[in-house]
């Protein structure tokens, strides 16, 4: 056989040998939840029992597998959804004041947890005319962190960008303020809306379209009372959390996005190894800055990406919570802080105790990739809905593959859901894009 044919046969055999249903051990928690990724978050907490009730996979993770604040590990888990919320450009973008000297512009970017990065760039490079947007997350001893939708402006204006929004509930933050739970029409996601001076911070609340249960009353209370923020003197947003709410520290999910008509630049504050660009300057390219602390992602045209690479200069980097480099110039001691944070996280989980479980019964066929449903939460019962393209692969896909295989074999399938929600009864009436693929799911509390 020719060498080329042997290669071809081997590659195809390798590609096909991967069987998602055999990868149950890969089930793991989503480490953050974007609003349109939330379905993955729900599945992260699923425990699957197939057929005879043998426990195949437990996805409620041990504490040491949770996303450690400050970790430099990539924490990405992505579930693409057909209709993520989009924000029409009604809000005025915010551009921080920057100085210009000798054709070079510079500014100190302040991250939400207190870190900062000084950048400079050629004045004629349009780096941020469409605004600067901070990004980050916080954790509450949950299996998944919740990330923020942050915009400069009034909460009501911002949340209405998703659709005409109504207030479902109002809560006192015990400091004289009010936090509303918003439901934008058609967005399929509810948000807790926080106003911190000039900044609006929306915290995805779950429920409805994206398929995750809402926060428990207890967790909602912890968010409302423990989540604080303010504008810094330079206009940036600074966030704080009272224990057990913890603002995400430096890591792959703490970033600042600079927007211009030509593209966007994300500056992820995370420990990395200085590197050359990851690939060609087209559409997406990334590199780690010489500081070893800023991972630069550029999305845009080749000209724009190349101009950013050649012109963007990253100066002083201050990482909050890190006293400074070790004598050898490294930040090795940060690992100790991360380990300590992990330990605290585990204690928090233990303090919150196990969540009650409920059982989900499924019948019918399942659209493995796409699921349609309709949803509403009312009076302690809910029908969960939406159109998703799964998957936080292999997590969701593996889960559904397990279920689908079991259904195909004619076995009875039950799914235990370890969530942190109310003791509610949830009925899923899902319908696949293909009419041949359908699934009825019923959840009920079993303890």
């Amino acid at each position, binding site marked *: 056989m020719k*060498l*080329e044919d*042997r*290669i*071809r*046969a*081997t*590659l*195809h*055999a*390798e*590609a*096909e*040998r*991967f069987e998602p249903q055999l*990868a149950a051990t*890969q089930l793991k928690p989503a480490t953050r939840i974007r609003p349109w990724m939330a379905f993955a978050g729900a599945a992260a907490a699923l425990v699957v029992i197939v057929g005879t009730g043998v426990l195949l996979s437990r996805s409620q993770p041990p504490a040491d597998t949770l996303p450690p604040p400050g970790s*430099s*590990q*990539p924490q*990405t*888990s*992505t*579930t*693409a959804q*057909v209709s*993520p919320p989009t924000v029409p450009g009604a809000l005025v973008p915010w551009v921080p004041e920057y100085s210009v000297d000798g054709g070079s512009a510079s500014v100190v970017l302040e991250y939400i947890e207190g870190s900062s990065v000084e950048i400079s760039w050629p004045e004629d490079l349009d780096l941020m005319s469409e605004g600067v947007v901070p990004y980050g997350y916080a954790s509450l001893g949950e299996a998944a962190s919740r990330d923020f939708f942050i915009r400069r402006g009034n909460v009501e204006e911002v949340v209405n960008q998703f659709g005409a929004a109504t207030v479902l509930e109002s809560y006192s933050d015990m400091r004289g303020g009010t936090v509303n739970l918003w439901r934008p029409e058609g967005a399929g996601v509810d948000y807790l809306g926080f106003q911190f001076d000039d900044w609006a911070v929306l915290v995805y609340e779950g429920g409805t379209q994206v398929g995750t249960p809402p926060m428990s009353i207890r967790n909602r209370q912890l968010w409302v009372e423990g989540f604080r923020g303010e504008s810094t003197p330079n206009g940036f947003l600074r966030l704080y959390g009272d224990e057990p709410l913890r603002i995400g520290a430096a890591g*792959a999910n703490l970033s600042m996005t600079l927007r211009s008509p030509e593209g966007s630049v994300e500056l992820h504050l*995370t420990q*990395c*190894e200085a*590197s050359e660009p*990851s*690939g*060609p300057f*087209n*559409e*997406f*390219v*990334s*590199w*780690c800055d010489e500081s070893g602390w800023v*991972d630069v992602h550029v*999305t845009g045209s080749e000209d724009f990406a190349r101009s950013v690479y050649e012109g963007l200069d990253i100066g002083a980097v201050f990482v909050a919570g890190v006293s400074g480099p070790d004598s050898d110039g490294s930040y090795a001691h940060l690992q100790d802080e991360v380990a300590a944070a992990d330990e605290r996280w585990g204690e928090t989980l233990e303090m919150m105790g196990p969540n009650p479980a409920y059982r989900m019964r499924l019948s019918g066929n399942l659209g493995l*990739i*796409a699921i349609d449903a309709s949803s509403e939460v009312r009076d302690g019962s809910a029908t969960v809905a939406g*159109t998703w*393209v799964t*998957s*936080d*692969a*292999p997590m969701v896909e593996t889960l559904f593959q397990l279920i689908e295989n079991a259904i195909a074999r004619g076995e009875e399938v039950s799914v235990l859901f370890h969530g942190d929600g109310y003791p509610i009864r949830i009925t899923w009436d899902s319908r696949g*894009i293909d009419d041949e693929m359908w699934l009825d799911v019923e959840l009920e509390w079993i303890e």
Partner: protein
Amino acid sequence: MGKQLNQPRRHQTETFADFYRVQRDAVFRALLVTLRNPDAAAEAVDEAMARALERWDKISDYDRPEAWVYRVGLNWAVSAWRRTRREVQDVIVEPSTEDGLPEPEVARAIARLSIRHRAVVVCRYYLDWSTADTAAALQISEGTVKSRLSRALKKLATELGEDR
């Protein structure tokens, strides 16, 4: 097969959902045999799909958006490895006879290629893309595709004891 990227494409009316349903698994498997790590391939394809979704208005105009997703996923994965200071070799899943492969020694030889060479091999012999398609997908010249492929084949032949 063999179509150039970035031309008006066949799926003008295709929604992202349709594209995702049809292409995700194929791109995932291509990344799987390139990266040789299921977790990395899954994260890479999802990250690239998320970026495709954000820019779907533009990406959907490409003749072969899946090639764009493959490239972005590959670049993202390599970048992620660098971020975490892991060497590519550290995460290679060494194939064995237990994996049911017809010729595990071929798989092992492919695994020892550099990722750049392996990407070209995957594009040409797994995805069956033409030299032009491979060049467009990986954003390199056709000459580079040919030279990388030639070197990769020579190395594979040497490791497998074949004359070329």
